[in-house]
C-alpha cells in the first residue's frame, strides 16, 4: 500500500530507523491486527499499534469501564465509566490515528465465535484477563495459522510470548494444562500496579509489530518472564510439543506472517 506524504511525516521517527523501511511501513498499513481485551494490557497494545500505523485494528471487549480500571487502563477516562471498553477504546484510537480503520467487537471471545472474530487477522494480541479466554484464543490462532502474542500480568509478575503456529511453541505447548478455575487469583484478588501492565503491553505491541513487518525477528520459542520488583527479565526457552492438542497438526505452510 502506498504511503502518503502525511504518512511519511506521521511515521518519520520509526522510518528513520535503520531496521525499518518504507516497505515495512507499507506492510503495516495493509495489515490487520485483532486485540482481545481493551483493558490494562489492551490499552498500551492498542495505542502503540494504532500509533505505529497498523491499517486495520479489531478491538474486542465485552466489559464496561469501571472506576477501578482507570489507574491502569489509560485508554479510558472518568466519563467513560459504564461505557463498553471496546467502544470507549475505539473513540480514543480514532482520534489518535484517524488514518486507520477500527472494527469494534463488544463481545467476549468464546469457543463458538473465536475463529469468526479472529479470521483475517495478520496478528492477534491476547490481552484477556482469564485463562479460559487465553486457551481459546491460542487454540483458534493455531487452527487459523495466525501469529499470536500472548501476555499476562499478576501483581508484580508479567509474561510475554510471541507465537507463530506451526513454527514455534504455542501457549499450550508451554503450558499444556489449563489451571483449574479459581486456582490462580485474578487481578481483582491479587492486585496489579498500572506500569507493570504497561511494560507487558508495550512488549506485546513490540512483538506484534515485528511479526507484522518482519523488520526485526520476534522472540519465538521463548517465554519472557518479567519481575517488576527488581526489573529483572528472564528468557525461558520452550519448544513445540509433538503431541500438542492445539498446534501439533498445524503445517508451517499456513503461516501468514
Amino acid at each position, binding site marked *: 500500500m502506498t504511503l502518503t506524504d502525511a504518512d*511519511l511525516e506521521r511515521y*518519520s*521517527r520509526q522510518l*528513520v530507523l*535503520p531496521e525499518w523501511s518504507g516497505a515495512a511501513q507499507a506492510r503495516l498499513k495493509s495489515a490487520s491486527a485483532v486485540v482481545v481485551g481493551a483493558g490494562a494490557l489492551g490499552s498500551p497494545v492498542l495505542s502503540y499499534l494504532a500509533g505505529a500505523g497498523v491499517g486495520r485494528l479489531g478491538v474486542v471487549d465485552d466489559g464496561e469501564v469501571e472506576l477501578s480500571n482507570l489507574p491502569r487502563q489509560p485508554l479510558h477516562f472518568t466519563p467513560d465509566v459504564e461505557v463498553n471498553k471496546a467502544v470507549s477504546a475505539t473513540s480514543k484510537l480514532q482520534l489518535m490515528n484517524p488514518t486507520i480503520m477500527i472494527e469494534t467487537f463488544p463481545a467476549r471471545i468464546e469457543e463458538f465465535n473465536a475463529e469468526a472474530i479472529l479470521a483475517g487477522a495478520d496478528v492477534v494480541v491476547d490481552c484477556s484477563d482469564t485463562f479460559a479466554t487465553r486457551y481459546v484464543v491460542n487454540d483458534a490462532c493455531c487452527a487459523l495459522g495466525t501469529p499470536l502474542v500472548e501476555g499476562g500480568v499478576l501483581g508484580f509478575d508479567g509474561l510475554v510470548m510471541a507465537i507463530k503456529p506451526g513454527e514455534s511453541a504455542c501457549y499450550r505447548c508451554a503450558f499444556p494444562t489449563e489451571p483449574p478455575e479459581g486456582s490462580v487469583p485474578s487481578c481483582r484478588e491479587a492486585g496489579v500496579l498500572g506500569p507493570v501492565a504497561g511494560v507487558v503491553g508495550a512488549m506485546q505491541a513490540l512483538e506484534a509489530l515485528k511479526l507484522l513487518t518482519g523488520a526485526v525477528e520476534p522472540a519465538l520459542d521463548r517465554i519472557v518472564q518479567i519481575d517488576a520488583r527488581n526489573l529483572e527479565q528472564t528468557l525461558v526457552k520452550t519448544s513445540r510439543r509433538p503431541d500438542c492438542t492445539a498446534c501439533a497438526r498445524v503445517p508451517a505452510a499456513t503461516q501468514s506472517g
Partner: protein
Amino acid sequence: MSAQTLDLTGVTCPLNWVKAKLALEDLTPGDELTLLLDAGEPIESVPRSAREDGHDVTVRGTTVTIVKRV
C-alpha cells in the same frame, strides 16, 4: 544503472532523510541518487544517515550524491 534527483530544499529533518531513504529503497545497488538539501542541519545529518546505512556519499556544497550500496 539509473540516476535520479530529489529536491529536498525546504524539507526539514528527519523528513528529508525519510524521503531520500524511501527513494533509495526503490533503486538497485549501483544506482545514483542526487539530493538538493538546505544548508545547516540537513546537509550535516542526511549524508551521515546515508553513510550509516552503508551507501557511498559525496557532498558538494548543499548537493549530495548517494550511490546505493546495500
